[in-house]
């Protein structure tokens, strides 16, 4: 170890890895991962969320899973829930859409209206 800067570099890299163990005040992306969701391709969607968030160094979002919410025909479904409790439900997702949601909604704060449940119905 030669300098504080070197330590800081390690810290930032390692923090990224253990960051998900802290879930205070974070936005949550909840992906439906029941049988219906998995069959419709929820797993690649979830992985796309995780990868994209990581690639863009977004620290304040956690990706978690949930069971079936009943709208199986709209799977894969994901909710984005902000710390203040505002929920946006996205439906009929694929990895590409997930990446777009990360950039538009989770980074720039603009929900992607055309993917939401309100538009699909």
């Amino acid at each position, binding site marked *: *170890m*030669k300098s*504080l800067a070197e*330590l800081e570099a*390690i810290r930032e890299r390692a923090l990224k890895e253990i960051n998900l*163990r802290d879930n205070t005040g974070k936005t949550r992306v909840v992906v439906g991962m029941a049988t219906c969701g998995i069959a419709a391709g929820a797993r690649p969607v*979830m992985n796309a969320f995780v*990868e994209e968030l990581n690639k863009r160094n977004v620290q304040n979002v956690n*990706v978690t899973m949930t069971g079936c919410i009943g709208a199986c025909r709209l799977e894969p479904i994901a909710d984005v829930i902000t710390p203040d409790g505002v929920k946006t439900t996205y439906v009929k997702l694929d990895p590409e859409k997930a990446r777009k949601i990360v950039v538009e909604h989770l980074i720039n704060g603009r929900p992607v209206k055309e993917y939401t449940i309100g538009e699909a119905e």
Partner: protein
Amino acid sequence: MIYRSHVLVCGGTGCTASKSMDIIDELNKLIRENKIDNEVKVIHTGCFGLCEKGPIVVIYPEGATYSRVTVEDAREIVEEHLVKGRIVKRLLLGDKDAEDVSKALEDVGFFKHQVRIALRNCGVINPENIEEYIARDGYRALGKVLTEMTPEQVIDTIKKSGLRGRGGAGFPTGLKWEFAAKAKGDQKYVCCNADEGDPGAFMDRSILEGDPHTVLEAMAIAGYAIGANQGFIYVRAEYPIAVSRLETAIKQAREYGLLGKNIFGTDFSFDIELRLGAGAFVCGEETALMTSIEGKRGEPRPRPPFPANKGLWQKPTILNNVETYANIPVIILKGPEWFTGIGTEKSKGTKVFAMGGKINNTGLVEIPMGTTVREMIYDIGGGIPGGKKFKAVQTGGPSGGCIPASLMDTPIDYDNLLAIGSMMGSGGFIVMDEDTCMVDIAKFFLEFTVDESCGKCPPCRIGTKRMYEILDRITKGQGQDGDIEKLELLARNICSSALCGLGQTAPNPILSTLRYFRDEYEAHIYEKRCPAGVCKDLLRYVIDEDKCKGCSLCARKCPVNAISGEVKKTYRIDAEKCIKCGACLEACKFGAVKKMA
């Protein structure tokens, strides 16, 4: 590799004993089977503190905490939680129906009342991965000290924080460092006392197992402050997990250049070696510990000279306890003002206690100084099992004393505990209920000191043995008038004449039980009666003829055939033959067998 989920499994000694390593293997196997091994990572951590409910498994990002997990539960956890995202509610700790599972845990009284400084990383990071420690601000304090502060400023910071030794005596840490810094010597040493020996205390082990790097970092800071380049950690050989994690941590710290030459590009060099203790209690005493590191028989030596001037190999040395060190990096980073904001006037910060005995939540807790005994037992400890009455709590191990129920509202700090005849000690907290005999407890601790006395000085070697003999005969119903006075006289003399802390404090368990439970001693001596019904020689088992149905179960359970009678008539116990094992009492379904004090 970034994972979407981390599964943290407790790898402390308690949970390891309940097969947490097998759980890890099973989880990994099932995770591979379900092909999510590139999404989910299983990590073993240090102790979460809730040993009673172990093995503990925490899954992030949900923060779901599962308790008493078995190898058989692994499949449900993987297939339900990790694959489908459904929380396994039956295993959840705390409110099983909580909307937000991570909140559920925070609301558990056990965690709600704690302030975790020394235990900040235990159960949060993988202790065998230095980068996880660095991610949690690890080694930043060392970097700050080496690049921005003078040794005097470091000592000043520690002095201002008011930190006192967590090993027992409570000596101000900053002052100790200052003495060693001012002492003249070409070579100085920094030692860490990890020879945790008090019965029931396991906080140092948990810190070493859960966060070994914090001790290494703090020792390097101490080395810089006093001008030492070599450290020694004296750890018990009976702590194999702690030893192996320390070895791993030292190796990693050397690889990262955080131990060794020219740390952070400065002139400062520091390295640490381990020394394993063979399990003698007296080696936790500072001078005996250093004698042992020197390779000699672990016996104390008179002070002065104090170790700060003539310690290890007669060189200026500081010796601090594991928990004391664990506070140092945080104090450096957050400043002494932050630290003094926690605790009482003369005892700053927090203290880790190992709660054990007759308490629901056995485990490890870190509380701010000033928390009362009542809060510890009822809010954090979850009360006494079986609806029994709280009688006393023993703190300070064999050097400490008992705090009776009448003093339950005493705020816990160094000075308050001393004032009521106990001491902080290293943090053992053994809870006793109404079924505990206080004479028997005093005898237990005396037996321990007699066993562990090194034999160098007569007051301890002979005196504690004589005290033990008196206690032994009291519990056997052979106590005599004048025994209490004899105990008191012996206790006073030993306290004032023994060579080291072990002997000087050895009479404390007797003195404190005499102070608060003198009537129990008197009942044993004058009435030949043990009020708690513990001392076997003073007990009698009898069968209530009115309740006895003549089922013969007790007679069949009796190992010495002391019970006789005819089926469907009443049975009786032959007091001559009875060995008072209590088997008949447990066997009787009608409550006919009675224990008479």
